[in-house]
């Protein structure tokens, strides 16, 4: 790479322009975060429940009421805090969970709710807002890392494209997506879900020997152009493509290679895409990746249980419990849970009353999300719904407040401003963080 003083100067100018004034407001914040935890950056994992999970059969049960349904409650390691019986693993770690039972939003449509929960904004406006993953990975980013700052595992095929999008932050902050390779294992099969990063592998017919030969020629080609055409655009192209090449290097790519884990560990997480995705999340957090989102219920909006709610929720709950509780246990064993905040959410909740096809319908009025891990005061339920579960009676929480709380938990000021293309300052969240659930 050309490093004459003047090309370096231009590159710095170009880079400065790119982050622009935005950097001014978050630099002090970064400094503060580093002060609190000098040795490592924080990470955030969103566990995304596609379809909208039922609060009444998971974390806000109504035993004894007609709405309560078939499941029993189980005691947890926090006296008085009870979950569904299908969360045996999580029940042992309830002291690390804050159950947000007062969620109240205004979008009852899958795509609109997905966008709302990811961006804090209702869809349809003139601005394309960045998803919380893009905003937080920008605020927490690791410039030196060979891994992407924002990884989405198995995002739903039906998901609105703009929900995971970097919006006005631009493609530099887009998620690298991890998807299934080949057919997912059939129901009841012994096979493990095979996950991989989109476009990380060489195209068919290109082996590493050929790739190395290509890259040797490519380096010369790049150096030659940069020397003749020093410019911000050329330096940025070279840098970004070089980091993509580094990412393909076995050492970096191995972060996603689950064959390096023992079969026993992989089994503990669960064989499906969610369990294996949680394992990828742990491997990425170990390597300081700031933001990972793992989806459960993917392509088919699994939690959308309009019919036959109970068997579906039982199956999904067990899969969720296995992956999530193993993830927390392993992070904790590695000393990483304190610096990793987990947010469990879907696009909305489901009606407390059971419909005549034994299902529950869309319900944004009163539902539940869960915060866990680093920066969170666990072992509590914040907010409350009435006996029937039909309205919030205490601690009403809007999405902006939830996201503001998440920001605080990872040490980012929610008022951190990023700039729209018209240089309009936009805060990550306009909401107020809920101090009671912050550690």
């Amino acid at each position, binding site marked *: 790479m050309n490093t004459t003083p003047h090309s370096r100067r231009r590159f710095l100018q170009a880079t400065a322009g790119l982050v622009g004034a935005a950097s001014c407001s978050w630099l002090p914040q970064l400094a503060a975060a580093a002060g609190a935890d000098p040795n490592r950056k924080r990470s955030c994992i969103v566990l995304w429940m596609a379809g909208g999970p039922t609060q009444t059969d998971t974390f806000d049960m109504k035993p004894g009421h007609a709405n309560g349904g078939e499941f029993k409650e189980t005691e947890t390691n926090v006296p008085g805090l009870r979950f569904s019986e299908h969360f045996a693993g999580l029940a042992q770690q309830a002291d690390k969970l804050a159950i947000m039972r007062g969620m109240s939003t205004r979008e009852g449509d899958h795509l609109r709710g997905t966008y709302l929960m990811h961006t804090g904004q209702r869809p349809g406006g003139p601005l394309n807002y960045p998803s919380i993953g893009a905003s937080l990975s920008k605020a927490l980013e690791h410039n030196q890392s060979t891994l992407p700052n924002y990884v989405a595992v198995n995002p739903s095929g039906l998901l609105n494209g703009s929900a995971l999008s970097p919006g006005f932050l631009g493609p530099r902050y887009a998620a690298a997506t991890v998807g299934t390779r080949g057919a997912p294992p059939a129901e009841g099969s012994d096979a493990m879900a095979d996950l991989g990063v989109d476009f990380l592998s060489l195209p068919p*017919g290109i082996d590493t020997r050929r790739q190395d030969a290509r890259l040797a020629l490519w380096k010369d080609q790049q150096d030659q152009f940069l020397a003749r055409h020093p410019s911000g655009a050329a330096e940025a192209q070279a840098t970004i493509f070089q980091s993509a090449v580094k990412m*393909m290097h076995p050492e970096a790519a191995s972060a996603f290679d689950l064959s390096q884990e023992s079969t026993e560990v992989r089994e503990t997480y669960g064989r499906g895409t969610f369990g294996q995705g949680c394992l990828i999340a742990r491997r990425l957090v170990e390597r300081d990746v700031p933001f990972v989102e793992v989806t459960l219920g993917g392509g088919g909006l699994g939690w959308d249980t309009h019919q036959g709610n109970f068997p579906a929720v039982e199956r999904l709950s067990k899969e969720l419990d296995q992956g999530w509780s193993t993830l927390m246990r392993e992070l904790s064993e590695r000393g990483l849970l304190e610096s990793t905040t987990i947010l469990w959410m879907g696009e909305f909740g489901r009606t407390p009353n059971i419909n005549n096809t034994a299902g529950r319908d869309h319900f944004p009025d009163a539902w539940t999300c869960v915060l866990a891990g680093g920066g969170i005061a666990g072992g509590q339920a914040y907010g409350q719904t009435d006996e029937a579960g039909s309205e919030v009676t205490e601690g009403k929480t809007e999405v902006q407040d939830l996201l503001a709380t998440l920001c605080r938990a990872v040490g980012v000021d929610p008022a951190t401003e990023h700039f729209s293309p018209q240089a309009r300052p936009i805060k990550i969240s306009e909401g107020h963080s809920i101090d009671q659930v912050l550690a």
Partner: protein
Amino acid sequence: MLRIAHVPVSCAVLLLAWTMALPAQDTSTDVSSETAKMQAMAARIDELVQTRLDREKATAAPLATDGEFIRRAYLDLVGNLPTVAQTRAYLDSDAPDKRQQLIAQLIKSPAYPTHLANTWRALVLEPSDDPQRLQNEQGLQLWLRGKFSQNVRYDRLVEEFLTATQGSDGPGYFYASQDLKPELLASETSRIFLGLQLECAQCHDHPFDRWKQQDFWGLAAFFAQLERPGNDNVIGLGRFDIVDRDMGEVTIPETDQVVPPAFPGSKADYASLGGTRRQQLAIWMVSRDNPYMPRRAVNWAWAHMMGRGIVHPADDMSPQNLPSHPELLDELTDYFIRSGFDLQLLLQTIAITDTYARSSEAVSDSEAPPELFARMAVKSLTPEQLYDAFLKVGLLKTDVTMMQQDGQRIQFVARLRTASKDRTFFDTGMPQALAVMNGPPVSTATSPETSGLLKALSAPFLTDEQRLNVLFLAAYSRPPYPDELKRYQEFLQTAEPGQQSAALGDVLWVLANSAEFMLNH
């Protein structure tokens, strides 16, 4: 006093009928005098740029080589690379005016309005990576393409855009995307057509800015009377008809203060102009002596060709943000108005200057700052240009107009859509780079099984040198330099028999992923 550039909106239909009835006036004397005026203006541009360079004691870069120039002109004016045959013909031509001939030919090509419509769609709408939204934008893009292919007077284009009522008529999508909100429509239309960023005055008077809250809300008041009709005629997702009512006002937020319509920086009385509020605004905007509208158009055209505006950023022409070449901006604006707001002529005039034809190579370490235009800026390709360029080097498809609806293209464009409107940035990320390196269309264009170019090059009578020549012409519009030729010849010689085509594919992969390919220089 307002001087109206042409007949106001209410008579536009009549005027259109009249102009269409006119016989063609394309006599040769008119053409040559037009050309002479254009050449004189181009020379004047070069003179004014040179004067500033002299004053700063800076040296201009030499003129670009033919290969550098043809690639740049194709990308800027028609949005795609030239073919190998087009490049060869241009390199081989001895015509003294071949640069001007090329520009004249490109600007008449059907790909010119397509590319310009693409560029303007990106200027008008926020970037989106949502495929659904991208498809919705097609209506606006088609409308723009129609205007540019007829070379409609720019002032009339602005007027039609501002007063659109039919959702099926392109601009309906712009109004929909701004939710019909007066404050959003005011800040976007003033940015797009006036180069004014008034929105900072939306919430408060800025101490250093001449624009006050009254200015902002006065402009917003022109959009205060819009609504969707009751019999909602929804044409496709995100487009709808618009009705101008005769009631509805704006108030400054958190006050009861109603702000009447007012033109920014002007005492002209809106009420003396007839028609709806939007028509009144349009009449003011397109009047000959509007201080902002034609200057903004000129600055856009300059920025489109040169990578940065005479005022930079190009859409922020506030009085605090001074032009690098004030005289040049004034004279070009005057030229643009006198030409009858002819955007095509304006682009053509800039394209035939020596300033546009300068090399993008740095000549010395102490080079002139970019606002002196001493050398051509290095610009990123748009995602559309990039996709089409990959197809072109693989000779996979040649008809650009057919590509518009290609699903893979829409996906690719969605993935690489940038947030920055400044093309001197390369604004993309690692996941996108991976997709380019390992995914289609590059993998298709560089694989011997699917690449038309590699198949054509497998002819046994060709030498490696000839093959490499074709690859370089296809990707870079230039033959390889001697050291490149040597390097790649050696590489091809190491390939096993039967792997020749694959090795050529490797070379094409290297070129397709290089900065020289992915940038317009």
